[in-house]
């Protein structure tokens, strides 16, 4: 029943999925940050192409990826609609006019650029979190990135309680119907249910914190680590490549004369 939630969503043997979680996270940041300095559609298009080529090396199943990417499609549609409605610059050739709105090639190019940027920036993050076990991430943050243990392990413990909130919310809704309150439309009922959920979540959080301290989490001794996370040469190579590739992409964009810096 719950197995599917905790099983890795792709073959964990894929060469890039196996990399150190901190290295993967760093690589995603290095790769995507340079993309936001330019407004042209060419840079994100090339970056997205590179990302799609790298995808098989992360071993993410397309069905899993599709499930996590679909919220982006909504964002993309929102961008398209708002650009068509509100874009200030309507340069380029007129394609068609919808009432008072002139839809021009310039408007569509800007919209395409934005949508490509959304995908190019979000995809690496999605792939990293899809191929990374939360426990491994917390271990690597502590061991390789010197994150505070109380933060990393505490967040991990809280993460484990999240699915309980969903169950709790459903039970609270049913209990309110049993008390004669039709749920759904009424914002006051929503607020009182949310409050009850919060009270329950706080109590559980306190109980968990006490149980963790009872097992010495607050002992102040230096913790040892049962599981090892190491930064290997392959991890460093991944970081290096992810720093160089976007530089290359930007150079290419400049060479093509498409570069439109965000400042200036």
């Amino acid at each position, binding site marked *: 029943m719950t197995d599917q939630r905790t099983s890795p969503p792709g073959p964990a043997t894929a060469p890039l999925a196996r990399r150190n979680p901190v290295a993967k996270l760093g690589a995603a940041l290095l790769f995507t940050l340079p993309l936001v300095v330019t407004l042209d559609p060419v840079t994100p298009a090339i970056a997205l192409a590179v990302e799609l080529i790298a995808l098989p090396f992360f071993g993410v199943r397309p069905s899993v990826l599709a499930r996590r990417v679909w919220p982006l499609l909504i964002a993309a549609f929102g961008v398209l609609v708002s650009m068509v409605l509100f874009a200030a610059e309507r340069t380029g050739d007129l394609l068609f006019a919808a009432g008072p709105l002139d839809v021009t090639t310039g408007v569509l190019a800007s919209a395409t650029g934005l949508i490509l940027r959304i995908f190019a920036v979000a995809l690496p993050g999605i792939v990293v979190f899809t191929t990374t076990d939360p426990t491994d991430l917390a271990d690597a943050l502590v061991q390789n990135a010197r994150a505070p243990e109380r933060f990393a392990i505490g967040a991990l413990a809280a993460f484990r*309680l999240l699915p309980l909130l969903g169950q709790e919310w459903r*039970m609270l809704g049913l209990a309110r*119907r049993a*008390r*004669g309150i*039709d749920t759904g439309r009424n914002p006051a009922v929503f607020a009182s249910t949310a409050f009850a959920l919060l009270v329950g979540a706080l109590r559980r959080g306190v109980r968990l914190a006490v149980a963790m*301290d*009872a097992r010495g989490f607050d002992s102040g001794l230096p913790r*040892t680590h*049962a599981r090892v996370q190491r930064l290997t040469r392959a991890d460093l190579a991944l970081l290096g490549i992810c720093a160089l590739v976007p530089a290359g992409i930007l150079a290419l964009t400049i060479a093509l004369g498409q570069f439109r810096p965000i400042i200036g």
Partner: protein
Amino acid sequence: MSDVQLRGFGWRHAGRRAWAVRGLDLRIRHGERVLLLGPSGAGKSTLLAALAGLLPEDSGEAEGTVEIDGLDPRKARDRVGILFQDPQTQLVMARSGDDVAFGLENRGVPRAEIWPRVTEALASVGFPYRPDRPTAALSGGEAQRLALAGVIALRPGLLLLDEPTANLDPAGAALIRDAVARATGPDTTLIVVEHRVADALPLVDRVVVIHPGGGVRADGPPEAIFAAHGDELAEEGVWVPGLPAAPRTASDQEPTAELVRAEHAAVPDRLPATSLSVRAGEVLAVTGPNGAGKSTLALLLGGLLAPGGGRVSGFGDRRPPHRWRARTLTQRIGSVFQNPEHQFVTGRVADELALGPRRLRKPPAEVRQIVDELLHRLRLEKLAGANPYTLSGGEARRLSVATALATAPRMLVLDEPTFGQDRRTWRELVTLLGALRDEGHGVVAVTHDADFVRTAADRTLTIGAP
């Protein structure tokens, strides 16, 4: 191996007027196994928290001394292990073995020693899976055994058990008791707080009764304590072994009209097709192992959930109960949830009772009359102004039953109504349900309390039996 010494110990939580425990003088020696008894609110859990070093100095006021091997408990934390009631809020990690390793990491145990100790601890509690088993996939009993392994792996000299089986069905509870017996050697000092005394007795050789007003009331071998104080303790709500729970409240008349009927009602993955009828003037007990779908059946009969297959119908209505308006539903079927707090929506006990009748637009005088009657009937008068979230377990249960009765439904559906209740509340509930049945109500109770079935049920339906 640990030695406990209390001298005039007392603790008052910050912001409270009353002392949670007071005037305790007690010595517990190496390897002794003690059952700590006392009525609800006697401060048993506070005492365990103090022994576990979990009462920070600034969280209240202390009196007297408490020492473990001559040390302040806050400095002796590495010698003490504590197991709480709810496994869900004790597990930290996503994988079982990692969770046992968590405490060892905190104590700075070298990595080479961690995994052999994890394996050993898992074996000693009879954990049936490999260490990479996701903790989210464990049943309540399995999760609690894992939590015990996490405590045992630290090799505590003093092991404290704070009602560790209260959330489990009888089979799961028995497994925990076996695991405790197996995993604790003669070198472990054991202090147990447990509602169901008979279940804890095989684990202990000494009983200490603490007085709600303060001090130790009785201390000695179990047989001697129960011979001398058994009746008194039972009166206060302690489940004294050997005393019958309550006389049977059998019905003296035939059940009358059918109120609700389920025909092959099913919910995918939660409840296999089940048929039954609920009749007025009858207490129907639904039993079955954990995971059989008992709670789901209660939701179906209570008109709170749509069946995935088959049908549920009743009260001569063409529409199924889950399609009724909420205010129609509360006049026909009242539901009492396993966790009373799920049902509370106001900040005062009296408002909680008035809510249902007010939503039916009853005149204020009538609402007041209903509230007063229920407060009296369920012994809640003194709590009329209290916040429902601050009630004790027994009080919260009585209030949740009262709220369901406030709209005068003909049928009552209860999910584990006697769960974790002391003997006194238990008897009150059984008597109340019998009286409601005699007044012509139909009562359905989902339960795995064998005493309840024996005492209160007119008819029993077992579901999901293997």
